[in-house]
């Protein structure tokens, strides 16, 4: 990676009720790169993303986006930084009270001050780019299947054409065919926008497909980072156990949610 990384994390720590979840996370993500963070449930993958987005405040460490420090930044600076991000949530997190098209247009109207009409035109384009026609736009989220909700969530995440897109468990709960369709859409959208992508997932098929690099989070730290092509020869017992889904190995699954 050359030049200033798009995202740089250094010594990121976060604890909940005295229990450490992140314990010194260091990560660089280059411009236009797609990095997938893998790890078991409760290892702090979502917490890492939420810290970068400013939804959670880290206990210590630094988060830089385009060289700008976000930890301790003012509300205005944080708001400006957030305008660079798009996010696809695990359950899509569509607004129940709004139609599909208003969900997709939301960030354009509220965040970027576009007129309702212009935002709806863009929203229709984005829906088309994820394979949904305009008749879907008038439906409400509760009328959609899980796969369609993910597509709408993806259209909403890319509507403002962000520099950085986060994907939180993009294929969880989907059948293998729909999961592959979502993976293809993620790759297409990220490529078309030239965006930087950070994804978190348990799904190794998805991780291998959408990433340039993979990082594994365990015990609150990134224990292995490397190109996707090298993960099978990582030489790391934790990574080996995780990617092959073995019950036996150094990783002991925790029984309680963090």
């Amino acid at each position, binding site marked *: 990676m050359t030049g200033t990384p798009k995202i740089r994390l250094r010594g990121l720590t976060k604890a909940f009720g005295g229990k450490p979840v992140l314990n010194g996370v260091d990560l660089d993500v280059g411009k236009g790169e797609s990095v997938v963070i893998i790890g078991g449930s409760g290892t702090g993958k979502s917490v890492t993303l*939420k810290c970068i*987005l*400013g*939804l959670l405040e880290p206990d210590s460490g630094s988060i830089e986006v385009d060289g700008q420090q976000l930890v301790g930044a003012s509300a205005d600076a944080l*708001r400006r930084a*957030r*305008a660079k*991000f*798009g*996010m696809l*949530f*695990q*359950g899509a*997190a*569509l*607004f*129940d009270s709004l139609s599909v098209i208003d969900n997709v247009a*939301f*960030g354009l109207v*509220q*965040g*970027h001050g576009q007129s309702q009409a212009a935002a709806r035109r863009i929203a229709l384009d984005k829906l088309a780019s994820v394979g949904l026609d305009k008749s879907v736009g008038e439906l409400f989220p509760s009328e959609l299947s899980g796969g369609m909700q993910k597509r709408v969530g993806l259209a*909403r995440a890319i509507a*403002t054409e962000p520099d950085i897109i986060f994907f939180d468990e993009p294929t969880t709960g989907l059948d293998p065919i729909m999961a592959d369709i979502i993976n293809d859409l993620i790759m297409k959208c990220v490529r078309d926008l030239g965006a930087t992508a950070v994804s978190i997932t348990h799904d190794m098929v998805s991780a291998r497909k959408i990433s340039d690099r993979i990082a594994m989070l365990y015990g609150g730290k990134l224990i292995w980072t490397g190109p996707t092509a090298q993960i099978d020869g990582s030489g790391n017992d934790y990574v080996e156990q995780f990617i092959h889904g073995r019950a036996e190995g150094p990783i002991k699954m925790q029984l309680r949610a963090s």
Partner: protein
Amino acid sequence: MNPLAYTGRGVIDLFAVIGRLSVFTAQAFSHAFRPPFYPRMVRRQLWEVGYRSLPVVGLTALFTGMVLALQSYTGFSRFSAGGESAIATIVVLSITRELGPVLAGLMIAGRVGASMAAELGTMRVTEQIDALATLSTNPYKYLITPRVVAGLITVPLLVVVADIIGVMGGYFIAVGVLGFNGSLYIRNTLGTLETHDVLSGLLKAAVFGVIVTVLGCYHGFNSGRGAQGVGSATTNAVVSASILILLSNYFLTQVLFAP
């Protein structure tokens, strides 16, 4: 645990909640004066909190006025015959000063406070509130402030309606059931009523409107995980708002009607 430590922990927790609630309330109001504004969200909440609460508040006021007239008559008839003027006075003062705002507040706590806590709690659990933040929208400004503003405006308006319907309920019983003179009843009602009686009730209503909406939003916004978390948030919103309405009503009455 040591009883002293247990008590101390309870006191610290209580003050922590009061502090968080104060900051939450201050944020809700401060966003009302700083752009961007969301008039569409305010209009929607005016409709939800105000218009859609009319039936429940109206029915409560109607039957309260009717019962009040009936019970006052039963009580007075033990000591003297008639008591027409006293019954009109009791009904109108009780409704405008106390029962109108308090009962409306309690009914709205059940209807609106619960619905706000459940809606925001579900939004929290399904990450919709986080999604708002990622779409460059301040959740306080978009979700909380319109609800609190709507409570502040509509609950006094609902109490005006409740006052009128409550007095009408008393009138129907007094004239229709007890056989009182209708014009005399109205004259006694209007002769007794002072501006201060109505305004004090409306001031109480505004305070109760803020209490209900702030607590509904606070508990929903800070809801725990899962269905149980949302359920607890809803229960806490209604119970805490009801208790705070009764508590604040006592202090407001003491200030507004100090002897």
